[in-house]
């Protein structure tokens, strides 16, 4: 059901964890419906210097979280803001249709973290 890339990221998720004293925190989803993603970022020179995630969700949710951290690491904030759920899903060679909303979660968490950073500044 999942592509090899999804399974690869699911088995070996990159950048798991939580950055202490993060510059931006994005948390989306809700415990009542069961899926939660938390993304923390470190920003230097307007670039995402470090990023880590924690996710409670299905295989696709974990893989998209991992992929989004890979995609944005080292990118400028502007570039990162342009990453959409479709970008993440494509980078994983696609997701099953019922799992597309899990990739929303990843993109939303990223955008929330950037917004949170900008608000703090």
């Amino acid at each position, binding site marked *: 059901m999942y592509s090899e890339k999804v399974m690869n990221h*699911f088995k070996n998720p990159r950048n798991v964890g939580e950055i202490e004293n993060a510059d931006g925190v994005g*948390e989306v*989803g809700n415990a009542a419906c*069961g899926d939660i993603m*938390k993304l923390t970022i470190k920003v230097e020179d307007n670039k995402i210097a470090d990023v880590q995630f924690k*996710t*409670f969700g299905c295989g696709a949710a974990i893989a998209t979280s991992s992929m989004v951290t890979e995609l944005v690491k080292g990118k400028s904030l502007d570039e990162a803001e342009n990453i959409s759920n479709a970008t993440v899903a494509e980078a994983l060679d696609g997701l099953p249709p019922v799992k597309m909303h*899990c990739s929303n979660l990843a993109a939303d968490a990223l955008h929330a973290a950037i917004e949170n950073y900008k608000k703090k500044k």
Partner: protein
Amino acid sequence: MKGIYMDHNATTPVHPEVIEVMLPFFSEHFGNPSSIHWAGREVKKGIETARESVASFLKCDPKEIVFTAGGSESDNLAIKGVCDALKDKGNHIITTSVEHPAVLHTCEYMEKQGFQVTYLPVDMDGMIRLEDLKNAVTDKTILITIMFANNETGTIFPISEIGKIAKERKITFHTDAVQAAGKIPLDVNALNVDLLTISAHKLYGPKGVGVLYVRKGAKMKPMIHGGGQERNRRAGTENVTGIVGMGKACEIAMRDMDAESERLLNLRERLHKGLTRKIEHVKLNGHPSMRLNNTLNVSFEYVEGESLLLNLDMDGVAASSGSACSSGSLEPSHVLTAMGLPHEVAHGSVRFSFGSSNTEADIDKIIEIMPPVVARLRAMSPLYGKSLNPSVERTTAVCQH
């Protein structure tokens, strides 16, 4: 790698002895059982022998057995057929909120046809209260349909007592015994049932064949019209190989059930104890004692079921989950939510259902692979520990479950 199959409530492999009795009916004994010539007669005999085997399995008259295309069809026939026959007497059905979709969705369909349905609630153990049933009965109640054992949690309902209540009020009583068959002894008279559903593929028979027991004198209209097969209760040339296989599966279940049931109970307890000893925050879903010997449904809190199943699958273990994420429909299990489980706990549920192929070595393997998997997923979970930051505003709009 030999896989460990822990999903026997979903389906079972066909028993070799069952395959053996089916084989001659594909091409050697191929006749139409309704034909009067020799080719039909020998096939007819095969069907009637199977009917007798099922009848002795359920302790009823062979004439009370209707062969169908499976558990779902039997449930549909029972509910639609009884409602059709009794619609002049009343329009009220009583069932539970934890039935299999074959009953639940049929009841919802009957509501659209103008019937009224009461869905009895369950408590935290997934058990109904007989008081609730008694209170739900009205003078318009024509049918009670309540499952024998729940497919997700294994919780066993007091069918005999429910049947007594139905009998006193002269209400037709159907039970879906698909999960009970082969795991607990069935006796339609002791159970006080008028109709009872079983399905061959849950007891080491072939898929696509089932039985509806219909008590002599019970009012039921047919659903499939055509030839006069099955005493006009289910038209269509019989699924001969399936029926013959189902008969044999019932014979084997009668022969092996006692010993096997005991063995599975030991395996189930071994797994439950092993998991709770090695992993924190493991919650049993289902009744602690009134439960099928082969079913263990547990929630691993703070982790999600689909990612657990994927990990188990990588180690060759096949199980199932009530998590919304693994359901395709993105709805969490209606059984677990009816029991009052919070969504995130329902999300972490895994059902292990045991069967003939399972050994102590399988159980020990699962007890060994589960703790690191759960630990890894918990380390990744924002719900575990104190990592949730209450000061961060969370968007809830993205929740699509």
